[in-house]
């Protein structure tokens, strides 16, 4: 029996070489497909106005320049301020969401109570509305509370779509932790809460990290709420802020692309770090959901 398996394996190995070449070609095509627009952005960001729109167009600038990047940080550019605003709002939103979700998702994961499934379904339902739909009543509520043009308005607005996601993700992480650990603690005299706080939370830290990264990442790039709720320059976030480079008659494409590259980099790095746990959480949530 085993002999024939070995034979099958040997034949399989010999057939691998041409297959490997095809695989590599596909991989290359995929890479080009994925990277191409990014390359266009980098190319534009390194070009002087004289080279940006030529006929015929070309990718590699003949006289590359860093002036676009310098200008993004230079005088008259609010980029640094926008960066700080985005950072502040994304971080605070993430912390609040984490704080709130951690309890709720534990409840959904571990406890049984009437209506639990109803609430879970409601949670899902809240994801079905387009943001454009609730933005009108939200805007009026914020207006009545005199919160327009404050950091609060965005943070609160972001809670709208990040809390359901946070609860959902964390719930799947909690489901992945065996119950026995808490049960053992309770038998030893811990309250439910102590078991939760002292045993489970430390175990779910990687999951919390991944959830936090995901929330950070979607609030970092959010555009519509930021456009509507914030007025003054000092409080604008990055996605809205890049429109500073879009004038009435002219768009400063070089600066715009330079700023865009600078906006993409932090989230890309962040994502590389948390990729594994995030994927695990997303798929767990899928299977156990």
């Amino acid at each position: 029996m085993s002999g024939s398996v070995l034979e099958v394996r040997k034949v399989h190995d010999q057939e691998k070489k041409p297959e490997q070449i095809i695989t590599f070609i596909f991989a290359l095509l995929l890479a080009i497909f994925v990277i191409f627009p990014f390359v266009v952005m980098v190319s534009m960001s390194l070009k002087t106005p004289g080279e940006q729109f030529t006929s015929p167009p070309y990718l590699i600038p003949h006289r590359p320049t860093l002036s676009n990047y310098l200008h993004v940080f230079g005088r008259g550019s609010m980029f640094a301020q926008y960066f700080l605003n985005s950072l502040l709002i994304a971080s605070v939103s993430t912390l609040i969401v984490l704080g709130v979700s951690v309890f709720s998702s534990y409840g959904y994961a571990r406890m049984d109570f009437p209506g639990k499934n109803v609430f879970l379904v409601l949670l899902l339902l809240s994801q079905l509305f387009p943001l454009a739909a609730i933005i009108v009543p939200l805007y009026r509520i914020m207006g009545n509370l005199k919160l327009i043009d404050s950091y609060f308005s965005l943070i609160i607005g972001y809670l709208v779509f990040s809390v359901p996601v946070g609860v959902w993700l964390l719930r799947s992480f909690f489901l992945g932790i065996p119950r026995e650990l808490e049960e053992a603690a309770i038998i030893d005299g811990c309250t439910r809460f102590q078991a939760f706080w002292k045993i489970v939370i430390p175990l779910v830290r990687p999951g919390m990290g991944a959830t936090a990264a995901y929330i950070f990442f979607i609030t970092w790039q959010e555009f519509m709420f930021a456009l509507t709720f914030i007025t003054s320059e000092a409080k604008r976030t990055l996605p809205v802020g890049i429109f500073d480079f879009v004038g009435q008659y002219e768009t400063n494409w070089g600066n715009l692309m330079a700023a865009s590259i600078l906006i993409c980099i932090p989230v890309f790095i962040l994502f590389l770090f948390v990729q594994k746990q995030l994927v695990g959480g997303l798929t767990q949530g899928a299977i156990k959901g």
Partner: protein
Amino acid sequence: MKKYFLSGIILLLVIFLSGVAFAQEVTLKVWLMKQAEVELIKAQEEALAKFQELYPDINVEFTVFPYSVYRDKLLIAAAAGNPPDISVVDQIWNPEFAAAGFIMPLDEYVAQSPSVKKENYFSGAWESALFQGKLYGIPFDVGVWALNYYNKDFFRNAGLDPEQPPVTWDEFYEVGKKMTSAEQWGTALWVGQGDAVQCVVDALIFSNGGSVLDQDFRKCTLDQPSALEALEYFKKLQEINPPGEVARTEEDSFQLFTAGKVGMFLYGEWGQDTIKARAPEMDWAFTNFPRPADGESIGTFGGWNMVIYQNAPQKDAAWKFIEFWTSKETNEKVSSLTPANIEAAQAFLNQKRRLPEIIFQQLTTALYRPIFPRYPDLAEIQRNATTAILLGEKSVEEALKDATQEINALLDEYYATH
């Protein structure tokens, strides 16, 4: 205890009241458009510093916005009851804001002002701020659509004299035809998504002796022969223009000019700096907007006016700021477009623009767009008609007839309830 308590209250009251008395300091909130040029930002800061010297108890806070969100932000803020004290508004929004009661008439201030007088400003700009007989804004800067920019190499390559650019509609078309080949074109048309396309179309109509609305702004006159001919001509220009004109914006089209794909381009007078930046080696010049054989070269006026909002708590201070900002010395330095103040404009043009005489002349003859509080809706009807014509969905006559009907309906509906 009671004694201390009472005196404590009195002390607090005194401090409070004197604080109120000392709070003579006024803060003005001014909303403007974002400027990209560093020198301009510096000039604004310097002008602001001078203003503070003149009026030490008036603080000024600028908030700048990119164009794409500016009108929305203004409207939302005004409707919600917290607009700024002062803002610039596009000329075409002035009637809208006036009719909605957001901004206040300025005639009294003007009557008493030593420097802000009608004669000092381009008439096309001044009159754009009038609504129902009252003046609702002070012109700050102006622009005119359009000048005919041309690339001299295209002329040479077509065997034409680069010092003899076309003057009439027919000449423009013929010259453009000679320049058009598989890879290059005479000019680029565009419609885009905003209302700027009306500037070019209206200019053609004005030059042909027509208008969009009648004198009282109550009836649409787009179905008149003068307008029909103008749009027929516009459609004819499609032949000498690269495909894709409907979604193309003015910026995309201007880039075709700077990239050397089209030989002539009808654009506002502020395009010079862009050409210098994007095509530093091009041998270019510009001339007047083409006119029909029996018409005049009349452009469309554009620009920005400064307005004071009804809710502004310190209107006198606001007026002082406007007086200062639109005065000859300051206006010249802080505007990115040509100043609306005539003397400042001359200085500005002579200093910063090529062929200032042509620009100046166009500024004096240009006409403003219809004064109608729902102008954006009107412009949209016009744009849809232009789109239908260019896409071949409707004939010029059909499109303009439908547009006239729709616009008349719009006018009637508005005037019935206002």
